[in-house]
């Protein structure tokens, strides 16, 4: 980064998404993409519904973690309330399908847009805050949106919304619907990885990284930090919003306390940390590893009654011994891997 001319244009432009540094190794984008595709294709190979459902949970986490990483890992801002985008997208999408009779596609689009819009509004409002203040406010935002929806009658207030089973007939019945929503999720996960890669390697992304390292310095060098942070926040919100729309469509009902559970945000942070924040591949591996471990412990005959204890102990061990996350550790341990691992 030091050889580059540090000044960045004062406004966010699409041109900023062009790769900033030439000569990236192809594995930088191919590895995370291959992992996501590998996970996505796995249930198709085995043909088992249960693998599809396990992978659904897993890929949902991948999208959440990879998206969160844009604001958390690249920009260095901890968002404790990231689930607010998942919940809001879920609500908006569900409302369109269940009440307005729109299609799932419109719901996905609207869910993503609503989440993006909320992120933009929050961003211009609170992204001037730094560090712990920002983290605290994100929790507040999650609670505020939840309280708003709890009192918002078109969304059913505290009752939430339910959808008639017959809606699924338009998508070939429940069986085909479950299959189709899975493919959509795989596509969203691929999109998340490509977006994360594009941001990470772009001029815009370099601006974000410089904010993470030293915000004042970045500002002096010409990065319009509030704007860059806001856009990073928006980009990290859209895909969780779409996944929310998809998840609640599948569930057939949505309620305020299910749409905004704080623990999902915390889990997403843990996944990003496990894999290695600020990297592209890290959150993918972190989310996949974490969810695979949880799924295994929950359903293992011998461990299922003590699954929380075991997963807590494992997390503790990981944090103790590889605090930089998996990718951070690999990059440090094997310097040669730095070219391929991003």
């Amino acid at each position, binding site marked *: 980064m030091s050889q580059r001319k540090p000044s960045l244009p004062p406004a966010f432009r699409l041109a900023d998404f062009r790769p900033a540094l030439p000569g990236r*190794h*192809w*594995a930088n984008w191919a*590895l995370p993409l*291959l*992992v996501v595709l*590998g*996970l996505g294709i*796995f249930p198709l190979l085995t043909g*088992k*519904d*249960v*693998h*599809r*459902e*396990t992978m*659904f*949970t*897993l890929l949902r986490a991948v999208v959440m973690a990879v998206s969160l990483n844009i604001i958390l890992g690249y920009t260095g801002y901890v968002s404790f309330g990231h689930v607010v985008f998942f919940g809001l997208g879920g609500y908006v999408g569900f409302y369109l399908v269940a009440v307005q009779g729109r299609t799932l596609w419109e719901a996905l689009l609207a869910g993503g847009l609503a989440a993006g819009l909320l992120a933009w509004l929050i961003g211009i409002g609170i992204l001037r805050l730094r560090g712990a203040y920002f983290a605290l406010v994100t929790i507040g935002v999650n609670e505020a949106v939840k309280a708003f929806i*709890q*009192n918002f009658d078109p969304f059913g*207030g*505290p*009752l*939430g919304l*339910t*959808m*008639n*089973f*017959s809606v699924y007939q338009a998508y070939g019945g*429940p*069986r085909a619907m*479950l299959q189709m929503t899975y493919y959509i999720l795989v596509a969203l996960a691929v999109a998340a990885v490509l977006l994360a890669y594009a941001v990470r390697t772009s001029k815009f992304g370099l601006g974000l990284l410089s904010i993470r390292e030293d915000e004042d310095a970045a500002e002096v060098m010409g990065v319009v930090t509030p704007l860059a942070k806001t856009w990073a926040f928006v980009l990290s919100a859209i895909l969780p919003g779409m996944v929310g729309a998809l998840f609640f469509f*599948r*569930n*057939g*009902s949505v*309620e305020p*306390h*299910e749409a905004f*559970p704080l623990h*999902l945000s915390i889990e997403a942070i843990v996944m990003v940390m496990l894999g290695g924040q600020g990297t592209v591949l890290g959150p993918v*591996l972190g989310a*996949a*590893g974490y969810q*695979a*471990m949880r*799924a*295994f412990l*929950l*359903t*293992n*005959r011998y461990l*299922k*009654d003590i699954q*929380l204890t075991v997963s807590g102990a494992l997390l503790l061990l990981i944090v103790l011994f590889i605090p930089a996350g998996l990718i951070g550790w690999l990059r440090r341990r094997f310097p*040669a891997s730095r*070219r*391929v*691992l991003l």
Partner: protein
Amino acid sequence: MKRGKGTLWLGLALLLVLALALAACGGKAETGQQTEGNEVVLTIGYTESQTGKYNVSSSRQVKGLQLWVKQINEAGGIELSDGTVIKFKTVSYDDESSKDRVQELYTRLATEDNADFLISPYSSGLTAAAAVIAEQYGKVMITTGAASDSIYKKGYTQVFQIYTPASRYLTGAVDILQKADPELKKIAFVYEDSKFATSVVTAAKDYAESKGYEVVLFEGYAPDTTDFGPFINKIVGSGAEAILGGGHFQDGSTFARQLHEEGVPVKFVALLVAPPEPDFAELGDAAVGIVGPSQWEPQAQYTPEAAQKLGIEWFGPTSKEFVDAYVAEYGEEPSYHSAGGYAAGLILEKAIRAADSTDPAKVKEALDAMDVLIFFGRIKFETAPEAHGLQIGHEMVYVQWQKDDQGNLKKEVVWPEAGATAELLYPKP
């Protein structure tokens, strides 16, 4: 050289993916329908909230169900007319009181563990998610601990509800009031802003209005409310003579205590969930006169004689037999959640006996045709497609805290009159 390294890393990544995938599959359990001689072992699948906020209610529900499984297996199972003997085993996972994995776990139960029948998780929200899966795989699911009406109005055909639906939770309280004091006309509804309480009071409000009551206050409070002062002022200001509402245990008992402390001059108070709990007695004098709906109470008079009067069949143990067996097994009194869990198993047993088969389609038919009285109450399911599986036979029982001659607090059943153990204490002291 670069290429070689790249391939190495690719290989490593693929290996990792494979390892993760294998881990996700977990161990293979020996479940599903197993036949040995003329004995068939059926698998019942469910999730339990071993962790999270539903933990207490859910584990009681599961204890009830497990007691039924144990009893039926010890009694030699169910013998069908062709000589087949049916026994049961259960498979369960922890749903963590969260919707996150409910569909994944129920898919696992339906496809990997080959569960023959499913029991719902605890709570309406989790059950709504599980019902989609039950429906998809054509598995009969008996729901217990899931009172919301909306689940059964979504077009499902395989889901059968044991509990009295939320829409009828408090309507009985209106009936009690009408019987006790035909002159009283002004009611206030003060309730927790949650899905459950809101759906209950909305239905009760409509019912009260249809009975000619004037609803002078209809106000929700946040679930974690600890100071009911503003609401009490509003109640007094509205001139209400009766209060209906509440939500869950914590807020309900606080509300009752503050009503007592402020000396609010109302004649009748009925609250959700909190009054049937034994811990409610800790309120002392504040508990006296408070009425509450319960899905089941040990004293409720559902007996073979009552069945005869109703002209329907009696099935299973009496309340006393159930309570004794439960206490002997777990060393604690059963709550209505425990009774609900046991009842879910019992209804499944009844359906299998009536169908004389384990074929899901035949069992479903038997459930559709069922009209039976068990210790838990009358069980009959709606069969019209717009609300298939909704419970229409079961009635809530209403308890009231009263003082006996020695001044000790006692929980008495006051409604329905047929099952009452004491007269209603009216007006509330």
